[in-house]
């Protein structure tokens, strides 16, 4: 059953083109909305690939060519190496989960029957249909006893969207196609549905093609992101971090937004940055020894901790007495504490709020693991960064310095900038 299954398929677009006849009277040669131009990309099994781009860029067309609601003009789509065009149409579609923005639940069927749609088409016995739909309602967080016999009109938008996902999963398909699945619900519900879906994907591990026009959703949800531009051209295909760090063209840079540095920070976590050791002492320890050690440390601060290694606060080395012992009253209040799962964006924000250069990283028990410095975040941001060589460089550079107070130089690597310029020329 889907809850335990890890069945997924590789989806490969092989030089896929879709042309629409230009509306009469319009200039030929101009791309028609929804057209796709020589698309080649491979989505590995079990990954979420987001197709993102402005409206009319061909992202939905590309999605619908997988379950052949639209047939390609040229090229093939291979599912685990088999050309989808050669498969029997209804059999193909029943093996692919399909979720659309308007959900399209059948208003005349109960929630239970809606969820069991594809298994019913596949001729499963009645008892198993019921069992399966109850199982799936539970998976998407809806109490089967409460929802099974209701009709779609009795559900809220968020609940309906969950039912839509359950319905798409019903026959345990190796592939899911999701066309702006969370586009019609309010931002708070959307955020919750996105998080729930990511958690669900951890267990079901389907191959998912997911269309959105929202770059933030793309970055949040995608293992891979395919950025489309008008004319059905694939502008860039890569991980969200790659795309944010090194947009392949001016179009991509503009599309991901001037705050792409901040967006990267929201994808990176404290665990991605090397932590610095802290100079620590407990109340009762020798002040002279602590003073010497603090002086040797570039930070020149002493972190006072309790018996369980929990931070009590900072003491500047000049404030440490030359003799006697460390006391509990010495330290100033602690700077923000973060854990390894905290995003760099949140960590940085906390440090800016507290007006400090250093955050204390603690484990679940609150024990000190090390220090996170603004400088370390800045160094991390420099990794993998290709300085963009586009016209709006200035604006992007400004965004960058906002993101990393540790002075990220947008032109830090002239070689990388040249490289990007060359790549841009060939796009």
């Amino acid at each position, binding site marked *: 059953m889907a809850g335990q299954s890890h069945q997924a398929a590789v989806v490969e677009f092989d030089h896929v083109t879709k042309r629409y006849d230009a509306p009469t009277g319009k200039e030929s040669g101009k791309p028609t909305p929804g057209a796709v131009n020589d698309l080649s990309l491979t989505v590995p099994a079990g990954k979420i690939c987001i197709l993102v781009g402005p409206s009319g860029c061909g992202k939905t067309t590309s999605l619908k060519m997988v379950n052949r609601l639209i047939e390609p003009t040229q090229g093939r789509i291979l599912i685990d190496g088999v050309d989808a065009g050669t498969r029997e149409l209804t059999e193909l579609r029943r093996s692919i989960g399909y979720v659309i923005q308007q959900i399209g639940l*059948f208003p005349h069927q109960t929630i239970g029957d809606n969820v069991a749609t594809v298994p019913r*088409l596949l001729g499963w016995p009645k008892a198993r249909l019921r069992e399966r739909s109850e199982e799936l309602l539970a998976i998407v967080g809806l109490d089967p006893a409460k929802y099974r016999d209701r009709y779609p009109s009795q559900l809220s938008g968020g609940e309906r969207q969950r039912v839509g996902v359950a319905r798409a999963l019903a026959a345990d398909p190796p592939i899911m196609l999701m066309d702006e699945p969370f586009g019609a619900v309010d931002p708070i519900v959307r955020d919750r549905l996105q998080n729930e879906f990511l958690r669900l994907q951890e267990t079901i591990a389907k191959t998912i093609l997911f269309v959105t026009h929202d770059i933030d959703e793309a970055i949040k949800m995608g293992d891979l992101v395919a950025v489309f531009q008008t004319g059905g051209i694939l502008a860039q295909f890569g991980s969200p971090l790659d795309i944010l760090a090194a947009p392949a063209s001016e179009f991509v840079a503009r599309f991901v937004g001037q705050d792409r540095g901040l967006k990267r920070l929201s994808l990176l976590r404290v665990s991605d940055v090397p932590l610095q050791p802290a100079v620590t002492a407990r109340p009762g320890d020798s002040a002279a020894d602590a003073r010497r050690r603090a002086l040797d440390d570039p930070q020149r601060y002493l972190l006072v901790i309790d018996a369980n290694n929990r931070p009590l606060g900072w003491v500047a080395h000049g404030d440490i007495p030359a003799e006697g012992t460390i006391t509990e009253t010495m330290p100033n209040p602690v700077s923000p504490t973060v854990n390894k799962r905290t995003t760099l964006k949140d960590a940085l924000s906390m440090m800016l709020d507290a007006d400090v250069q250093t955050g204390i990283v603690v484990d679940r028990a609150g024990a000190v693991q090390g220090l996170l410095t603004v400088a370390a975040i800045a160094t991390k941001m420099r990794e993998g960064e290709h300085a963009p060589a586009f016209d709006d460089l200035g604006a992007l550079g400004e965004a960058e310095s906002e993101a990393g107070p540790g002075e990220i130089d947008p032109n830090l690597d002239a070689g990388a900038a040249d490289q990007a310029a060359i790549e841009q020329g060939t796009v």
Partner: protein
Amino acid sequence: MPPGTKIFDPSWVFSHLPSIWERIVQHLQLTAVPLALGIVISLVLAIIAIRRPVTYGPVTAITGLLYTIPSLAAFALLRPIFGLSLLTAIIPLTTYTLLILFRNFTAGFNAVPAEILEAAEGMGYTRRQRLLRVELPLAVPLIIAGIRLASVTTIGLATVAAVLGDAFGGLGQLITEGIQGFFPTKYLLGAALSVLLAFAADVLFVRLERVITPWSRARAGAR
């Protein structure tokens, strides 16, 4: 009206219950058969029209034209062919239902939201499965609305079939006899029963719709 005749004579009614009942049965037959035929023909035409939208215009034009033929003229035209038979009554009564039914049925199919059709297609319904399990059930409210209208119209119109004779004349026969025999009880009764029948049919179809579309009741009593 001869002097001394009562406007309405209940004692006549009570003494003629079996023959009145027979007229009611005849009338139901005169209504139900054309209605059933009309539903089948219109459903087929409507399904063709949603698959091939070009046919919608011509079908509307033809059924509209048929609707304009006066019923008496239609009986007169068909009498040389089918004689004073039930068929002569049923053919025009059937054609009169087509315009209303066809237009309501196509409206019902067209009212099914596009995203529901797309979801059905994307999940692997065959065309036939989609028609029978999705489009038809969702078109039911407008289909029933058409049937209600057609049944009420046909019940009224069927009284004219009395011109075709006593054998299957229905309530129209009562009315005609009442007028010709200056006997108000008969035509008043005929008219009243026709109205009651139309009313009953309407109630019946409203009930039927409620029974076969439980989801629309769920909406009314939301959450």
